[in-house]
């Protein structure tokens, strides 16, 4: 039995399909929309439509873009000899905000998981190897997540490009800045020791 008018029920149903929105939140958002000004709701609807109509993966790096190639790939000031491989497009935002990196990217679309049977063919690793061959890449920075699947992906990539004479690096792992040593686990602390640097 529907409690509200059909369009309201429909909105609640659609909203509760979104990640981390439960039925309670969906109801709250729906009523916010119902009470709010029409322009706000139309703006949201238009934004949803636009993103689905216009956004596609960059044909070179698989970042999201409105064009054939994304803005980063088209930027001639960036260092095209370095490719940073990430799991998801939103990882690019995190890295860009550091201001530390000026090379290109490659979105793998996930990580390898020998434990659950996610195989290399499910990711864009072959496309990365092709790019390295075609673009004369000198370094691949593998910036997958520092966990079992991310590191398995990094090892696999290193193995795949071994013959191509490209340098493969991974991000340093160690203690999070601002934390206390006593809360660090053995693996993290062990890595921090292995990667210590001279002052």
């Amino acid at each position, binding site marked *: 039995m529907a409690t509200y008018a059909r369009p309201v029920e429909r909105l609640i149903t659609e909203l509760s399909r979104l990640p981390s929105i439960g039925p309670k939140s969906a109801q709250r958002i729906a009523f916010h929309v119902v009470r709010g000004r029409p322009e706000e709701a139309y703006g949201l609807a238009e934004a949803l439509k636009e993103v689905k109509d216009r956004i596609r993966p960059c044909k070179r790096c698989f970042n999201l873009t409105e064009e054939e190639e994304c803005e980063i790939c088209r930027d001639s000031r960036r260092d095209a000899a370095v490719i940073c491989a990430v799991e998801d497009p939103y990882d690019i935002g995190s890295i860009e905000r550091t201001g530390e990196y000026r090379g290109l990217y490659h979105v793998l679309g996930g990580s390898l998981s*020998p*434990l*659950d049977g996610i195989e290399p063919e499910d990711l864009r690793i072959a496309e990365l190897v092709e790019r390295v061959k075609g673009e004369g890449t000198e370094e691949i920075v593998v910036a997958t997540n520092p*966990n079992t699947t991310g590191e398995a992906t990094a090892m696999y990539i290193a193995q795949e490009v071994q013959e191509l004479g490209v340098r493969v690096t991974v991000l340093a792992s160690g203690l999070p800045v601002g934390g206390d040593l006593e809360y660090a686990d*053995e*693996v993290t602390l*062990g890595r921090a020791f292995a990667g210590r640097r001279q002052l």
Partner: protein
Amino acid sequence: MALYKSKGIVLRSIRYGEADRILDLYTHDYGMVSAIAKGIRRTRSRFGARLEPLSCVDVMAYSGRSLDTVTQAEVLRSFHGVREHLGRLEAAGSMVRNVRALSGGDEGDRRVFNLLYRSLETLEERGAGFKSVEAAFGLKLATLAGYAPELEACMSCGASLEGTEGLLYYAPVLGGILCADCRAETAEAFPLPPGTLFGLRSLVSGPVKQAVLEERLEESARRVVGAHILAHAPAATSLEPRPRVRPA
């Protein structure tokens, strides 16, 4: 909500929600447990790398209606040497998948926990022969689960397999070997390269630490183990058609 504590090995870890993970653990005292580790994907999470797959941990959790919640974890042995090597990780991957396949809804069996621990330890210590460890583990696991493969006589005619001429075949659903004469008994029987039977027997009878097959036999031993477990996993049998009329 009862709080409990046990040693456990992380079999699987799935991203959940914003920053959580749902873990499957095989615990020493309670068998398979699914528990959520809240906030574990945040860089500042107090869990850190403690609950990475294959880690053996002392875990504290409280049981919920559908899912338990991990409150604390201390590493007993991280097995990062297995995670950081692709060959070892692949073998371990198939081992933990087999544990999940064969322990659906069962009571815990601490022998399974101990077997898994010893096998991960063996993988971490050795530099080659990972598939032999994987196959030995699978055979011993199937035996503990009550599905020991029959490796002494033909499943159909009962003939002894000693000194048999011709190829032998493995029939996963029957759970054992068929002689060349009986190979047509089931469609899914596949041939074993010479020496495989002897290799399988040595894996069954010896300790995991000493599991070593000739390289040419490793692949067929893995195939036998994989097909045998798939045919006997509770999850696979539930796919069989149910009786149409249910007794009242």
